[in-house]
């Protein structure tokens, strides 16, 4: 049975479609060509409405032990008054895996990537991802603080061995790409190091952060993994850290690299408070280096909880915990930290963080290389995306906020001088076409024939936050899942992963390493493909 959405204004940047009125056909879960001859079809009139592919989020902490511990630490954050959808499971449980699916879907999102999968904890991540309704998901596996890699680099191992180890890890964890978090920082923190920069050396290994970063970046590139190395730099949140971000961009040496939540690295150390906007320098570097992509990690005001695998920085941030409780946890090969925080618009630093994020969005000229994240929930929960889109699309709205925030921050920022407004085409680029392309998910983020029929329809409104908060219609794999901003079907999603080839010779030193130092055997550590659907209820798509 075919379905046709008729009369909508289609925004499909992957095909240069810029709001033209077109009919959109789909059948059996995929977009298709219009039929040659009229036949039986369901027609849905979306005249005057905005039609886009389902949105794709490349960086949102939605699963895994770190997120789950944050849930437990912060019960006051998610007390619920009533169930939102009586028909659907756990719709009364705010911040549950289930609620995550419902809320993303309401906004027209259909694919979300969990960017921090600690290999040791990968099974739990996949179990949680499998419990998120509607969305397709993927994870990025973390390396860079693991003893095996650091040892390999210390002992002069060859790049080919690093590549094999990375490929083995991606398969063992069933992930879509590779993430490095403050390369070497968590390992250094184990030996009581309290600050750690790009050229600092990890105690006991004599290996610098830069060396780890470059080895992993080369591995991802040489393995042909579509998503470039996803980098959480050193010195997150530290005044003056724009220098770290610029040095990291240089260290990428022209090869593809994705820098995550760069707002948290957009800080100069000028002015009488020693904290200033480095957005212009950072954006200029991104504009200049076309091998670099960034997501912003926008801060929006209110209570949230920061969740990060950057153990060293999270420990350092413990003093600003609000409410005053925090968790730091470590393990064999990395860990995490959870620090609740309230961003206040009258606070100089918080207000400037807000402005710096928006400045990066507005100063990076290529919407194919800058992404809309809030680093959920670090800058703000993902449910605040519509507010962010409004800020980007409406300079008068920005001006209202600039008049409300801390005046010194508003004066110190260049934001009030930036007139740019994103249009719907740029929003569609940044939220659909570009992220799908960056992840190597060629079957989504666009509306060409053959793409999955993940479609979001919005009623255009003056208030862009209202428009994007509740999609008029959302289809997932051709099935209607949202109508009038309400979930109407809770279908199951799939999890996407890559399976790069590697020399099986690596499993010999690796197996011996596991036997010697781990409490798990290598074969019990890796996820066995045939075991996953049964034991986790997960369905995987390998790319």
């Amino acid at each position: 049975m075919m379905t046709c959405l008729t009369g909508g204004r289609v925004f499909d940047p992957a095909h240069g479609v810029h709001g033209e009125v077109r009919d959109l056909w789909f059948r059996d879960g995929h977009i298709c060509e219009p039929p040659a001859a009229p036949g039986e079809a369901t027609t849905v009139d979306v005249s005057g409405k905005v039609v886009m592919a389902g949105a794709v989020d490349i960086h949102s902490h939605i699963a895994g032990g770190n997120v789950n511990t944050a849930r437990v630490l912060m019960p006051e954050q998610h007390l619920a008054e009533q169930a939102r959808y009586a028909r659907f499971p756990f719709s009364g449980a705010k911040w549950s895996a289930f609620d995550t699916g419902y809320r993303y879907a309401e906004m027209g999102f259909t694919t979300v990537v969990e960017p921090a999968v600690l290999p040791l904890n990968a099974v739990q991540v996949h179990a949680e991802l499998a419990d998120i309704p509607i969305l397709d998901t993927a994870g990025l596996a973390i390396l860079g603080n693991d003893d095996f890699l650091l040892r390999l680099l210390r002992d002069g191992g060859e790049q080919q061995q690093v590549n094999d180890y990375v490929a083995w890890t991606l398969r063992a964890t069933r992930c879509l790409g590779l993430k490095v978090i403050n390369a070497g920082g968590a390992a250094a923190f184990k030996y009581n190091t309290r600050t750690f920069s790009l050229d600092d050396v990890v105690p006991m290994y004599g290996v610098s952060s830069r060396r780890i970063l470059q080895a992993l970046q080369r591995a991802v590139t040489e393995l042909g993994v579509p998503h470039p190395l996803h980098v959480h730099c050193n010195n997150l949140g530290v005044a003056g850290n724009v220098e770290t971000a610029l040095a990291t961009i240089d260290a990428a040496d022209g090869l593809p690299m994705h820098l995550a939540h760069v707002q948290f690295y957009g800080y100069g150390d000028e002015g009488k408070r020693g904290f200033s906007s480095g957005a212009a320098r950072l954006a200029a570097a991104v504009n200049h280096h076309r091998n670099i992509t960034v997501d912003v990690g926008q801060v929006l005001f209110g209570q949230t909880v920061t969740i990060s695998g950057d153990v060293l920085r999270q420990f350092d941030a413990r003093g600003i915990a609000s409410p005053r409780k925090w968790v730091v946890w470590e393990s064999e090969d990395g860990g995490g930290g959870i620090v609740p925080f309230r961003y206040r618009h009258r606070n100089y630093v918080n207000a400037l963080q807000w402005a710096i994020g928006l400045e990066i969005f507005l100063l990076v000229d290529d919407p194919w290389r800058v992404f809309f994240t809030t680093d959920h929930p670090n800058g703000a929960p993902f449910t605040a995306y519509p507010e962010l889109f409004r800020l980007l699309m409406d300079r008068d709205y920005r001006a209202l906020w600039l008049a409300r925030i801390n005046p010194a921050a508003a004066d110190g920022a260049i934001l009030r001088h930036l007139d740019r407004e994103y249009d719907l085409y740029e929003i569609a680029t940044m939220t659909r076409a570009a992220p799908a392309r960056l992840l190597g998910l060629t079957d989504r983020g666009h509306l060409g024939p053959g793409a999955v029929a993940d479609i979001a329809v919005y009623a255009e409104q003056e208030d862009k936050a209202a428009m994007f908060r509740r999609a008029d219609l959302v289809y997932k794999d051709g099935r209607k899942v949202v109508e009038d901003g309400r979930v109407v079907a809770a279908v199951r999603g799939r999890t996407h992963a890559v399976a790069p080839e590697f020399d099986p010779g690596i499993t010999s030193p690796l197996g011996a390493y596991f036997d010697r130092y781990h409490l798990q055997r290598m074969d019990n550590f890796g996820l066995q493909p045939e075991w996953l659907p049964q034991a986790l209820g997960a369905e995987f798509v390998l790319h």
Partner: protein
Amino acid sequence: MNRELPTREATESAARESATGPSTAIPCPFCGLGCDDLSLAEDAATVTAGAGCERAAQGFRQALEAPLAEPAVAGRPVPLEQALERAASLLSRARLPLFAGLAGDLEEMRGTLALAEASGGVVDHRHGARLGGIQSGGWITTSLGDARNRADLLLLVGDLRRRMPRLPERVLEVGDRLHARPDATVVVLDDGPDAGAAGVERIPVGPAQLADFVQTLRARVAGRPIDADRYPAAAALAERLRGANFPVVVFTPDCLGTRHPDLVMRGLAGLVRTLNQQGRAALLPLGDGEGEVTAHQASAWHSGFGVGTTYHEGVPRHDPLLWSWSRVLAHGEADLLVWVSTLSAEAPPATRVPTLVLGHPATRLERAPEVFVPLAVPGVHRRGVLHRGDGVALLPLRALRASGLPHGGEVLRRLHARIAKETA
């Protein structure tokens, strides 16, 4: 949303398939240590658990030797469908069903949570909601593997070696650690009869003094003025903790041996926070096994809260004291007890409340419950997923031998489907 769960046939075929597969590196689901190096003997009837782990040997033996039990209603054997029909009818009519036991794997926990939400019940693990003790202040923790590789001083609060027989071999006295470090010094806070194992230093502190001792130790470490006569051993221990490079404080809530483990845990968390001002230190809180950590974690991503949660208002409400299963049962608030327990054959407590037992085929039932559905034991009769006691790593449980018993996750899903139909 319907989760596709394996059918009974699939479970059996998985068992057949892996029964012919490798019979080493078998994960053990019977305590929080999460060993995965066990072997299945030639006759496929016994599992070798390494040096002297009676707990594993007993767990595997009990499951492998369990008779093919049949479902029963009020003690009378019935086909599975009939047992499920009776169970669903009791669940549909219950005002406040209580889901307890929960000594199972992830699939059983998922099924239990879905059923509890649909029927408006209370969910609590038989060990209670003891892992949520961090809500008041947070803590700094590490994992079993990190403690094994890096700790230079391990302080065991209570003698965990009784509960985790292979703890010395796996974590405490391993001989081969990262960077060729020597084994850690082990100090045990315990006054139990067999606490003084050879080569282990013991400070005799009983459950009654534990909270007080820990507060004294914490004050000593922080350099606060304190009565010099209080626990002289605490002064020396504080010095050693401060002098160590990476001291790790290991405990399970059970080992704290007190009715108020929260108080001790908070004291230990504060102690470790203080040590981290200048150096490094960590807690290693471990679940006591029987699916405790999996129940806690799965509950958290389903409801946002750990166990000790009720769904009777349609949204999850969490209060570990209010929704403690033993309190709810003792006060007569529940009108149906659903006891889910495949990793332990222990029977539910005697109660006048009608009881459904979905559990181990060898469950020692003194009195026939309203409904008994014997289930496959995860890690023995079917595959499964279980957290290691530190909550970081998860074990891929194997199917070692076909049992003909149904999969607990599937049974719970079918019950869910039945009550969804009845209440629709």
